[in-house]
């Protein structure tokens, strides 16, 4: 175990870890927006909203994330979409996790008892008022845990973007394995950073969850 080497490359891994964090945060935001929109569309009776949402969720949950990233980054130029690696990664990861978040959000919304919807409508609130003011606040509590699971999956899934040459943790590990021939040390370093990032994210998610639960 070459600790001297670890000390020397530590700073590069730290920088890459920050890229991983940035990437994950941006993708989660994109995913949440897409997920919320698609969840509401999927719950809508209008087939023009309902069917595209179903197709979106089915396609992006049913195909590998790596393939999706490759289509966007390598296939994009063929249809006029030239993207740098980092934006392509954010879009690819965001669209992918959005499909999973759609189901998490939709599940939470459906778990709010029908009585709430019926009562609001009979009090004269419109469908959108009911959704925004009554259902979603109650569903928000139930969404936290599944969305948290999605987020952790995203953080780990961000390792895939190393294949489209985004300089994040896994890419850095691969690169330094190639130049130092000490894979164990590089794995250890990258693993340590991932575990720290995942642990911090889990901590925040648990805190948010506890905060909501205590409001009963």
């Amino acid at each position, binding site marked *: 175990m070459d600790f001297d080497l670890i000390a020397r490359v530590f700073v590069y891994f730290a920088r890459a870890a920050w890229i991983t964090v940035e990437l994950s945060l941006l993708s989660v935001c994109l995913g949440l927006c897409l997920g919320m929109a698609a969840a509401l569309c999927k719950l809508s009776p209008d087939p023009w909203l309902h069917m595209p949402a179903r197709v979106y969720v089915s*396609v992006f949950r*049913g*195909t*590998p*994330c*790596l*393939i*999706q990233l*490759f*289509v966007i980054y*390598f*296939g*994009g*130029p*063929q*249809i*006029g979409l030239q993207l740098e690696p980092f934006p392509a990664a954010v879009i690819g990861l965001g669209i992918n996790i959005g499909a999973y978040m759609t189901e998490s959000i939709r599940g939470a919304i459906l778990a709010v008892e029908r009585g709430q919807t019926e009562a609001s409508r009979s009090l004269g609130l419109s469908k959108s008022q009911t959704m925004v003011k009554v259902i979603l606040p109650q569903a928000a509590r139930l969404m936290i845990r599944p969305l948290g699971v999605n987020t952790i999956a995203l953080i*780990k*899934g*961000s*390792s*895939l973007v*190393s*294949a489209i040459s985004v300089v994040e*943790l*896994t890419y850095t*590990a*691969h690169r330094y*394995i190639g130049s130092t*021939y*000490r*894979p*164990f040390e590089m*794995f250890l370093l*990258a*693993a340590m950073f*991932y*575990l720290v990032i*995942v*642990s911090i994210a889990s901590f925040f998610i648990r805190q948010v969850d506890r905060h909501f639960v205590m409001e009963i």
Partner: protein
Amino acid sequence: MPGLDLSVLPEYLPMLLLGLMWTCILCVCSIAFSLVAGVPLAVASISRNRWLRSITEFFLWIFRGTPLLLQLFLIYFGLPQIGVYLSPMVSGILGLGIHYAVYNADVMRTGIVAVESGQHEASRSLGLSRAQTLRKVIIPQALRNVAPALGNNLIALLKESSLVSIITVPELTLAAQRAISDTFRPFEFYIAAGAIYYIVNYFLEMGLKRVEMKTALAR
């Protein structure tokens, strides 16, 4: 090369299907490994021996908190450092297998704990040892309880198998990349590979639903 040219697909379809065959072999082996390895991990993580429990928890924590790709690199690039040289296919099977064994262990542990303690008490009082109780009474019920969750893990395994293309296993994604290096048409071939994954995924889901119906405990 801008624009789409779907006519290149038929010529390379055999190449993609060969890759699909390797994907299926890879997945079947990994699924088997992950299910078999998941059971002892689950049992060890609720063991009465504190030392065994801690070691197992630590191992599970590391493999749950790090990405599959990194674990594949550890096996494929890291093991040679201690003299163990594995082929890409074996590394892929091992990597996917261990990663999903860890997820399956978590699921199975939930299932084992969820089997009502009455079962355990009854078997012990009938004279079965702890090991026999686990093997013949608890685990079969636990597995039937968590079959849907295990099925979800299997579906995830199929999709994540595309990662092993990065350590040069000749599966579907790598086959698509080879076709692309011939024709310079990434969009068509990655979409085609995606479509093949989607179709296989669909059949896997159908199959798992039938298994779930058969193993679901009558409530």
